[in-house]
């Protein structure tokens, strides 16, 4: 058995000596960016999603498996705006990969390509776990995916100049396809305009801007602090005079506070997928936004509101 370490060393050396694969290795913090990277890069990229739709991306452990994946990545694609601040900086320091450090060409934040909403005017932890660079849940508005795709294509071209035209074509193809989907969704979503909702966490300002809905309150007393019975009772009081259609939660949030409130009001408890995989129906980018609309439209009475 004395040769076991030697065999391991040889195996590792062989792995290290393998020729670099042609595909651009993308480490995506969230499933939607893994899917978008493939839309833009096609066969030229291989994308790994570090989190699933069932996970709270604010709270991820800097696990060994994630360090190993980031170690070999050529391009990191994350939401940014401090959404991943609780774990990504640790991964970046441990993964020892200069290609994806902040400032390198392989470090890409979707937040850098869109206009951020809810930039705070005061930054104080007494306000809860707020995001000083604006609300980071920008993927809930599908219109944001077009500027992100175009910026991503430029970044991929910078990393892999030989295929620059392919990435640009991929982004254009996506934009074309996406514009027709946006038109279809706008028609589907028309009955939602002006409808009132409450949400578990403040994840939905971009969705509200897209659909013209009003999110009038949150189950969390402050961002990141779990719903308390006192706060839910206060919320219930307010909803008696000013009712809402539905109570929106993400795929990873506890259903019980929503259901408690739904039982005491006429509002429906709604699981609205925040990303791919949050519900089985959200299989890819297109079905994600259809599933969002399915869920929200389910709160309206049949035959129009």
């Amino acid at each position, binding site marked *: 058995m004395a040769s076991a370490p030697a065999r391991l060393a040889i195996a*590792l050396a062989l*792995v*290290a000596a393998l020729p670099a694969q042609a595909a651009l290795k993308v480490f995506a913090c969230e499933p939607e960016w893994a899917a978008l990277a493939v839309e833009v890069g096609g066969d030229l990229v291989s994308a790994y999603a570090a*989190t*699933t739709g*069932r*996970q709270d991306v604010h*709270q*991820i*452990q*800097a*696990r*060994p*498996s994630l*360090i*190993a*994946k980031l*170690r*070999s990545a050529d391009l990191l694609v994350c939401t*940014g*705006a*401090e959404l991943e*601040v*609780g*774990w*990504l*900086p*640790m991964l970046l*320091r*441990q993964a*020892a*990969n*200069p290609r994806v*450090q*902040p*400032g390198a060409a392989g*470090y890409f*934040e979707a*937040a*850098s*390509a*869109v*206009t*951020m909403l809810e*930039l705070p*005017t*005061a*930054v*104080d*932890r007494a306000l*809860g*776990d707020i995001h*000083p*660079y*604006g609300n980071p849940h920008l993927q809930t508005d599908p219109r944001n995916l077009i500027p992100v795709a175009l910026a991503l294509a430029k970044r991929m071209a910078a990393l892999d100049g030989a295929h620059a035209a392919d990435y640009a074509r991929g982004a254009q193809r996506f934009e074309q396809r996406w514009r027709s989907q946006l038109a279809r969704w706008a028609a589907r979503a028309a009955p939602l305009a002006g409808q009132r909702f409450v949400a578990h966490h403040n994840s939905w300002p971009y969705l509200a801007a897209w659909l013209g809905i009003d999110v009038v309150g949150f189950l969390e007393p402050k961002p*990141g*602090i*779990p719903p308390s019975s006192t706060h839910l009772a206060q919320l219930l009081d307010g909803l008696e005079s000013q009712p809402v259609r539905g109570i929106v939660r993400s795929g*990873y949030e*506890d259903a019980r506070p929503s259901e408690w409130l739904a039982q005491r009001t006429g509002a429906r408890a709604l699981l609205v997928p925040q990303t791919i995989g949050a519900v089985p129906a959200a299989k890819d980018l297109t079905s994600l936004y259809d599933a969002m609309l399915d869920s929200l439209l389910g709160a309206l009475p049949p035959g129009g509101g």
Partner: protein
Amino acid sequence: MDTSNLRPPALCAALLALAAGAQPLTSNALNPALSLILDARLASHSNDPAAYQLPGFQLGPEVGPGERGFALSEAELVVSANVDEWFYGTLVAAIAEDGGEGVIELEEAWLQTLALPSGFTVKAGKFFSRIGYLNEKHPHAWDFADAPVAYDAFFAGNLKDTGVQLRWVAPTDLYLELGLEALSGESFPAAGRDRGGKGSHTLFAKLGGDLGASHSWQLGASRVDARAVGRTIEVDDPAVEPEVAFSGDSRLWGFDFVWKWSPDGNYQARSLVFSAEWLQREESGDLEVRFPSASLPDAGAYAGEQDGLYAQAVYRWRPQWRVGLRYDRLSADNAVTGLSAPIGLADDAHAPTRTTLMVDYSHTEFSRIRLQLARDGSSPATDHQLVLQYVASLGAHGAHQY
């Protein structure tokens, strides 16, 4: 409250720049990330903590169960930032009170590379060694109010020293990390900066991965080679009050295992974390003993073999609530020869054990209140301990390691 000082013009400018997508985000806008950890406690001990003993072990400095009554364990100031695209730097200073006087202790001050190719990282300065699982973690990140007894016995809390660390992450999907450190040999279990100020060496390896979305694990192995020259030993014998110094070799093996479970990988919602470490050490060398009554020092030889392990499980049953159970056990087999009078170092008949139960509540991830009960059988007379503690972190949002 005046909030105007919370948004200085520089920060606003940075926010506007970021809103316009002008620069990528780091954990701070322009200044280094600054955070302050406060850790205060109220403790009750059935035994006098000042008379703490761990029979069979040469204790390092400041090892013990803490004080009775109210105590501010320490205030920890952490400053960190990317220096430039090549380096990341951190300073951790502990501000503590010692007999009514404020003292600042340098816990860590190091620079780490960010831009080396092929998975290599070099860290240089004073740092917590990367051996073991718990060694690199600061007290505020521990799951209990105190360190495992084995860490107190073998590292006087944790192994930290000045030197250089080289680590390599393998380009494999299974996480594999190998590393080594060369250290000055000033800190326990080394002493006296032997080998020309390069008195300690360590080696470590880590292996880890996931099993589905709900399980993750890490295995580690560590080795510490330290040279001690004139390491002073606290011998609690009021009758003779000898001054004891040990010079010799200290060699340690460590193995650690961590397994974490949480439904769908939502650690913050519900989780169970099991961790265990086993440390095994051999020390051999010379003892020099000075009795106040004798004019010449007494010389002897020392050879010791010691084991220590802890195993703990921490269950988070609701987002803000955790409960944890930990078991510690140590044993020693020491031989002292040549001394004219026994000084207790060979006293290895008692195997120290401790059982600890804790429950804690975290209103947010920045504040934690903990109640801990322990039955500490470090010495033959069992100490019953109760600790009520808070840990608060102010300022920058530090990312925690696995």
